[in-house]
């Protein structure tokens, strides 16, 4: 191809040499003019040199201009070169034929120099524009394909994180849970999750991430994992969501947000604690068919602001009650007129649908939305999660105790004595009790030694709860911030002469307990110790 900054090449084709001279004379000062005396030569030159424009005589012996034009258009190499037919005035009736063969224009003999200049200039400019446009289109298409690819990958990541096996807990007869996510074509960001955090506490999560593609999918993956990690250490929705928000709003350069609904349902007692962070309020359909909306909101969407303390609410489910959680893809589904499905329609649907399984509740609701949309394009992900209690809740209290001591070493013995009494009363294995005593001895010793201010009398609160085969201890003090598990370094390998004791007590606490956690809330240190109690054989 000829460069645009060097002279363009015009190929003039005419069986009359004098005509070629005329054209050369007119154009040679501005262009490089090549000449061909007949069709076959013209084709050869065109293929070899790919001129920027061809002036083509129509009347030629042998191969005429039309045939040359046709052949030029059949060859991919020469197809895009603009062709201007040059013809005598009395052959105008064949103009249509020329254009239909792909010619760009017609010029009449005798050739008028200014007109020839103008036409050549115009068609060269046109050709250049088209080339540039074509190039730009190629780049745009490439970008678009890449973006779609990224969206697809993001979508794949999103879908791969969903629990999809149902029934989800076939060996648990006291409840059932079912969920469904129908992705929209482009926009997305919904996710759901459910998992046990202890024998009887089931976490239910539904959320909607703003944004799409891989960044949104990654944001979602992080959110899910923070929830899971935090839930196991601390089964309080308020605390979990607060932690999630802190993590997600810290480094959030692309300002992604998540609406989140998190419930922790005790499948034994029926108590559901929940936190709503900017999400659609879920519904409860009671056994008798009556409907309630969980309208409490406990804070804004996740990721907007750091250092927010979310709250939680609690509700009791009875046998046969259903909890229905969903995303706005349901209520904002549109029909062809652009009218929304709406909360009202959803309520009506839930109220009127027959009581059966959670699976039916989910699939029938989706069906209702799809029927309403009636083929209109789905604008956003649709997520539905239904949970139901199938047995009478058992609300018997689990064992717990509470002790408050002064920040005095002498008090540690009294504390441990009370713990031993509690352990005996609840038939805890001796080894568990011993480990507990050691951990408490060393933990409280450390708190008094390092966390308390000199000469200030403070109290330390110890709460102990035994539920779902787990012993959960909380040690709460109002001393200065002190995390006993932070930067824990202890010498466990030096010889007798070189051995130091530093950190050993705290190491014992961490290693003897099955799990430990530290949190600072308001002006309190809260240390949690968790021991798993094996089920009686």
């Amino acid at each position: 191809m000829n460069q645009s900054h060097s002279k363009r090449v015009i190929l003039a084709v005419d069986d009359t040499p004098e005509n070629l001279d005329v054209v050369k004379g007119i154009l040679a000062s501005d262009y490089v003019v090549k000449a061909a005396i007949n069709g076959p030569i013209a084709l050869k030159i065109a293929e070899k040199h790919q001129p920027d424009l061809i002036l083509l005589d129509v009347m030629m012996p042998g191969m005429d201009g039309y045939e040359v034009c046709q052949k030029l258009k059949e060859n991919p190499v020469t197809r895009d070169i603009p062709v201007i037919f040059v013809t005598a005035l009395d052959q105008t009736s064949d103009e249509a034929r020329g254009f239909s063969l792909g010619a760009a224009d017609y010029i009449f003999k005798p050739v008028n120099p200014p007109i020839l200049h103008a036409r050549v200039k115009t068609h060269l400019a046109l050709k250049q524009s088209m080339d540039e446009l074509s190039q730009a289109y190629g780049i745009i298409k490439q970008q678009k394909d890449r973006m779609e690819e990224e969206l697809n990958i993001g979508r794949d990541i999103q879908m791969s994180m969903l629990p999809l096996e149902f029934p989800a807990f076939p060996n648990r007869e006291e409840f059932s849970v079912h969920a469904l996510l129908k992705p929209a074509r482009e926009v997305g960001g919904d996710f759901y999750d459910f998992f046990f955090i202890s024998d009887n506490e089931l976490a239910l999560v539904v959320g909607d991430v703003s944004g799409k593609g891989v960044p949104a999918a990654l944001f979602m993956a992080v959110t899910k994992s923070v929830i899971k990690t935090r839930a196991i250490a601390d089964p309080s929705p308020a605390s979990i969501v607060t932690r999630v928000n802190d993590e997600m709003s810290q480094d959030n350069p692309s300002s992604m947000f998540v609406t989140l609904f998190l419930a922790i349902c005790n499948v034994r007692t029926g108590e559901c604690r929940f936190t709503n962070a900017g999400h659609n309020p879920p519904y409860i359909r009671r056994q008798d068919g009556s409907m309630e909306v969980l309208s409490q909101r406990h804070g804004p969407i996740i990721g907007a602001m750091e250092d927010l303390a979310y709250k939680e609410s609690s509700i009791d489910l009875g046998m046969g009650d259903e909890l229905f959680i969903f995303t706005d893809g349901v209520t904002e589904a549109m029909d062809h007129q652009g009218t929304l499905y709406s909360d009202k329609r959803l309520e009506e649907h839930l109220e009127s649908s027959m009581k059966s399984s959670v699976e039916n509740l989910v699939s029938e609701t989706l069906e209702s939305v799809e029927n309403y949309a009636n083929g209109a394009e789905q604008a956003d992900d649709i997520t539905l999660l239904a949970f139901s209690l199938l047995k009478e809740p058992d609300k018997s209290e689990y064992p717990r105790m509470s002790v408050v001591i002064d920040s005095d070493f002498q008090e540690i013995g009294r504390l441990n004595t009370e713990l031993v009494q509690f352990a005996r009363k609840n038939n805890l294995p001796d080894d568990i009790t011993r480990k507990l005593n050691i951990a408490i001895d060393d933990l409280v010793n450390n708190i008094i030694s390092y966390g308390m201010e000199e000469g200030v009398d403070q109290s330390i609160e110890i709460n102990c709860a035994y539920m779902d085969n787990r012993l959960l201890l909380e040690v709460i003090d109002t001393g200065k911030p002190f995390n006993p598990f932070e930067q824990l370094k202890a010498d466990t390998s030096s010889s007798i002469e070189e051995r130091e004791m530093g950190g050993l007590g705290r190491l014992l606490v961490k290693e003897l307990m099955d799990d430990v956690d530290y949190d600072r809330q308001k002006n309190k240190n809260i240390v949690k110790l968790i021991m798993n109690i094996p089920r009686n054989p």
Partner: protein
Amino acid sequence: MDINIRNAGEINILDFSGNLDTNSSPAAESEVNGLLEEGSKHILFNFSDLNFISSSGLRILLATAKKLKKDDGKMVVYGLNDVVQEVFDISGFATILNLAATEEEALASF
């Protein structure tokens, strides 16, 4: 916690009963130091009746071991229950202290 002291020839045996923790360690420390001041070089720690030990108790064992090492003495700890053994394992004391399962074994090692 109770500590009973008896002898087997040159060897001093301390029978522990109860817990070696923050509150009881000071008393244990003075009993052991008493023996060391009298020039004892062979000390047996009988833990068969010891319920549990925390790091305060480990501190005393280490201090005793250091002193005895300097004076070419020896100490053996025996009768550890499963939890006490675990404490020794976690803290690395199982590798630096002489342990035995029974009193016979402990005495035989002198």
